[in-house]
């Protein structure tokens, strides 16, 4: 069933897409490879699970998870991004990875290391088109992801804040000279990218009905791959990359087997990096010397 696999691939891809956009906001604008994003993805899923388990209505649980991720991301900005300005470009990597380890272990202490079953929200409503089975939850997530990305793209191109963000992405120094207030812009970007990551985590939990403290690692790293395949710093590149990676993953599992996923996905990433480092629809890097 190739068409069923394509539907599944699109679904997985839409989650990678949100994570890739979250990464792209951090790296394209602030030049910060934020490894806490897989952690925030996990917090989205796990905190939503925790809220639902406490008996909260799902909307409250989701809002709580998003708020928690936003708060954590503010701490990441404060402790991992801000002190590192002007230092080694690799240094923030350590502390953002520190956050990933910290978040995973806090969730581990609270909920244990096993996979937890996430309760289904929409009682098995499936759309059947011929042989094709599409879950309503899948459809809703896909629509939500696409709406979010379209909105974000409009926001960046048409609003004042969006223009500021694009200026910073072009050149941080020039932006500061032109009067962009970096110390208020950076936290907002962190909150925005945390919300995207946590939304992806919640969607993952709803669709695959399972959460675990380590759910962020695999998805997070594929999100990075998706971002680069599409083109770093480009929203639509992240969309294309996310869908492509999701599709390749699902198709290579069904055609060849689960053990080759890393070869096909990361092989594609490696190939893209060697042949076309700017990604499929990214602009060539202008800032780098040599």
């Amino acid at each position, binding site marked *: 069933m190739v068409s069923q696999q394509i539907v599944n691939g699109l679904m997985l891809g839409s989650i990678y897409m949100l994570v890739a956009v979250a990464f792209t906001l951090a*790296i394209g604008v602030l*030049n910060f*490879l934020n490894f806490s994003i897989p952690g925030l993805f996990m917090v989205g899923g796990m905190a939503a699970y925790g809220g639902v388990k406490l008996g909260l209505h799902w909307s409250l649980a989701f809002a709580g998870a998003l708020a928690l991720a936003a708060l954590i991301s503010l701490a990441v900005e404060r*402790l*991992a991004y801000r*002190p*590192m300005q002007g*230092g*080694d*470009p*690799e*240094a923030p*990597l*350590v*502390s953002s*990875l*520190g*956050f990933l*380890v*910290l978040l995973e*272990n*806090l969730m*581990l*202490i609270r909920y244990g290391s096993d996979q937890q079953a996430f309760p289904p929200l929409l009682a098995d409503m499936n759309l059947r088109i011929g042989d094709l089975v599409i879950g309503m939850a899948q459809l809703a997530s896909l629509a939500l992801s696409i709406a979010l990305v379209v909105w974000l793209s409009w926001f960046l191109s048409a609003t004042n804040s969006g223009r500021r963000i694009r200026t910073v992405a072009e050149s941080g120094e020039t932006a500061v000279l032109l009067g962009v207030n970096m110390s208020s812009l950076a936290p907002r970007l962190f909150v925005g990218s945390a919300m995207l990551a946590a939304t992806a985590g919640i969607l993952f939990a709803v669709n695959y009905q399972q959460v675990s403290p380590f759910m962020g*690692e695999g998805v997070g*790293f594929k999100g*990075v*791959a998706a971002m*680069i395949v599409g083109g*770093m710093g480009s929203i639509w590149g992240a969309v294309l990359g996310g869908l492509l990676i999701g599709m390749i993953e699902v198709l290579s599992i069904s055609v060849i087997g689960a*053990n*080759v*996923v*890393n*070869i096909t*996905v*990361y*092989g594609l*990433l*490696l190939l893209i*990096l*060697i042949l076309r*480092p700017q990604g499929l629809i990214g602009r060539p*890097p202008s800032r*780098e*010397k*040599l």
Partner: protein
Amino acid sequence: MSGYLTGVLVTLSFNIIAAYAVYLPIAAGQLNLGIAGFMAIGAYAAAFLTNEMSWPIWAAVLVSAGLAGSVGLMIGLPVLRTHGIYLAMATFALGQVISAVFLNLEVVGGAAGYPVAAYAPPNIVFAAAAGVVGFMLLLSTTRFALYLTAVKSDPTVADLLGVSVRGIQAAAFTLGAMVAGFGGALYAHHYSFIEAQHFNVMLSVFPVLYVLFGGTQTVLGPLVGALFFTLAPEWLRASAEWRYALFALFIILFMAARPQGLVTMSLFRLFGRRKPQVTT
């Protein structure tokens, strides 16, 4: 020596070797996030040589280190066309692809793992780690170390001054891959069992943490970082389930206070020999 202490020291030795494998490229300004892939090459090649070809351990380890180095050179040349974050991601992808290839290689057990018959006792491991540290200290006194610093600090100026930037970067990358392969080969023979799942992202990323935490400015940084990352969780063992959380929190706060790492040049100046004051 008690079994526990030996175990910790063996882990420490492997971590030190891994840290120096990451340190070499970083000293030339390249972040290698795929070190686990080169460890896997070393581990599987050495295990194959002793298991199927009945080579002695020392020869297998050396040849496998060389093999990991040559794979590093071959793949490094195209990969090193990229810079900065692109390079880091390329090495990351490379590490993932290499361990996934071993996962599918039935000749060395595939997903079931690969038992290794020959055994390298702890003393050999200690000696190997000491050897790597000694080699690095030696290397740090040569012109090569100066070239590395020059390429890292300002590639354009280094290029203008006649340093072959591509050559130095490729050399640092290859040497790093060799050290990683060496560590992997020993790992296979000490623990007598390897599986592809062991050589995952976190195995690549943690040595990078040791190096950045210890500091990249001096050759002692990786040693101090590996010491700290291996021993601190052991001390925190008393607070069993909280130890990694506490440890991570400490790292975050530490890096916020001291982004350049623990051991820096200025630290040496502070405690080192003072230059005699010129008085008139």
